């Protein structure tokens, strides 16, 4: 893609925190909190894709749902086209609802099994509370099915009568029905077979070009994110540890966690794969309920020093739009 003129980001997230209370007992007394998203900042330009990668439980879904205001942020700002929507009331947020849409990992769980495709799409189309004639709705459904490359005969089908790939196309059509500007795609291909994954990824890219869509693309599969995203943010235990141009994730990963994640993903290029160095991490991701102090990665990091146990390193620019949160960058890159 050609270098475009720098533009105002369509979405700018600043110091976002989303904590879930942990309650115990009959009275639901709060005994602690899960710091699911802990002080993250990033921006997405219009028409671009930000890929959010990390292992399960690191806070990807919570980030996506926080931006859509499905979850109430604990603190921080979410500027959508310059307006902070983080603390808006239900009524204030309503005009933005249709512009911000979500595509789920499991279209089966997110589609009402008792509704036909036609009913699902009609419902989405009419959320704008405008008057629509039956003919207008019919034409719109046809347009949407064409956009997601489903046969028009699909409109009478129910979710259980479709394949996983077809259901995901319906999920995409439902999101498009609202004429959104920004779509949070939460693991949209993770449950699909590889050949079907490619069909859906190509479709999402095509729709992005033809409709100028902006994506927050959440996934745990680094190769998929590399392919679809312009910018990648790597998350670990509620924090962004590295943020970079997608091309740099393979060419120039800096954070020890990013390197380990990258090394753990085998690649299908035989000659390269057989030469690659493998970094095998010890232990498992700690629970965010009692996340380690300092850098969340330090208990598993080969380079950890005393500083890492005490202070969370700041996400720091290292040039070329590349940001890393690590105290020991010098040692790590040597």
């Amino acid at each position, binding site marked *: 893609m050609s270098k475009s003129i720098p533009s105002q980001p369509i979405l700018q997230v600043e110091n976002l925190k989303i904590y879930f209370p942990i309650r115990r007992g009959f009275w639901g007394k709060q005994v602690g909190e899960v710091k699911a998203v802990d002080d993250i900042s990033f921006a997405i330009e219009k028409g671009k894709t930000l890929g959010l990668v990390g292992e399960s439980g690191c806070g990807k879904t919570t980030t996506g749902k926080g931006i859509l205001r499905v979850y109430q942020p604990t603190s921080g700002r979410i500027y959508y086209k310059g307006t902070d929507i983080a603390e808006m009331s239900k009524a204030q947020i309503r005009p933005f609802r249709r512009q911000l849409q979500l595509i789920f990992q499991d279209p089966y769980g997110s589609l009402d099994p008792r509704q036909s495709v036609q009913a699902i799409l009609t419902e989405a189309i009419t959320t704008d509370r405008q008057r629509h004639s039956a003919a207008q709705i019919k034409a719109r459904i046809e347009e949407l099915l064409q956009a997601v490359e489903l046969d028009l005969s699909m409109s009478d089908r129910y979710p259980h009568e479709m394949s996983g790939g077809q259901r995901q196309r319906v999920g995409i059509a439902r999101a498009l029905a609202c004429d959104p500007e920004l779509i949070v795609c939460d693991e949209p291909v993770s449950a699909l*077979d590889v050949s079907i994954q490619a069909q859906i990824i*190509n479709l999402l890219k095509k729709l992005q070009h033809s409709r100028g869509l902006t994506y927050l693309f959440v996934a745990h599969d680094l190769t998929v994110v590399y*392919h679809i995203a312009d910018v990648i943010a790597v998350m670990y235990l509620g924090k962004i540890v590295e943020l970079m141009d997608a091309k740099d994730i393979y060419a120039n990963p800096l954070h020890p966690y990013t390197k380990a994640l990258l090394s753990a*993903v*085998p*690649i*299908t290029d*035989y*000659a390269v*794969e057989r030469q690659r160095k493998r970094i095998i991490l010890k232990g498992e991701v700690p629970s965010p309920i009692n996340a380690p102090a300092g850098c969340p990665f330090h208990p598993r990091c080969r380079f950890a020093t005393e500083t890492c146990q005490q202070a969370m390193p700041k996400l720091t620019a290292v040039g070329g739009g590349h940001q890393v949160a690590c105290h020991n960058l010098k040692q790590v890159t040597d």
Partner: protein
Amino acid sequence: MEQRRVLEVKNLKTSFFTPTGEVKAVDDVSYHLHEQEIIAIVGESGCGKSVTQMSVLQLIQSPPGKILGGQILFEGKNLLDYAPKSQEMRRIRGAGIAMIFQEPMTSLNPVYTIGEQLTEVIRTHTKCSRKDAWQIGVAALEAVGIPDAQERMRNYPFQMSGGMVQRVLTATAIACRSKIIIADEPTTALDVTTQAQVMELLLSLVEKYKTSIIVVTHNLGLVTRYSHRVYVMYAGKIIEAGATEDILMHPWHPYTRGLLECVPNLTEDKERELVPIQGAPPRLQNLPPGCAFKPRCTCVSGLCRDEFPTLRRIGPNEHWVACHLDAEVSQA
């Protein structure tokens, strides 16, 4: 590498007899496994990978399933000569061939501790005291890198993560001195860094205990990194087989090539358009004659419609393919 075959499957056929007809899940499948070798069985879901492996251990639910024919040669015996519930099969399932499933939680009993289950299995396969079995169990947990093994023996499965349970099952195989481990999508439910841990663990068993491993997966990356040879399955049949290098560098069958072209790769230009395989795998019922891949194939000829292509050897190496395509077209 010594080329002794520790397992040989010949012309295996398994079907499910459902109200709507016969589902030919495994249709004349042959493969073998050498000592200290890791082989991979790849293909999309529903193509018969799991049913093939379950047939080897006679774990097919019957009815509706039935092994219709073939031979499974292990330690000089044809396992199909034994009844599924026989003493011999039970012994083989633990001490001979161990299986690790995709959903590891379902392989453990939720109401017993890890230690109770481990010692139980160890004692059915080795004549030893409860105390000795416990020690063997602890050692096996330590061997698979589980910290505080003594403590962990007292845990229930739900108190462990998916990666941890996967390691417990591997420990069981070590404790029973299984010769072969069949790992069915062992890492699909796990996070990538945990996936890497589990795969490295399996790899270490090959070196340490001379174990041989069958990995069933749809992840071609895992295949590239860990397997010596690959069998590609489609619609209940093996359609290509060979050394990993040959399959990945010179795939022949349009399906194998399709599988490689539809996945993004970190080493290539990220703007390359992915080439999906059109459509979806067929249901394995009332398959029309000819090649099962033809509705999705980009290079169909007249032969493909009527005649099923049998596996034939191509090139000097052990590279086999079931496709009517001739060399010029395939390499174009």
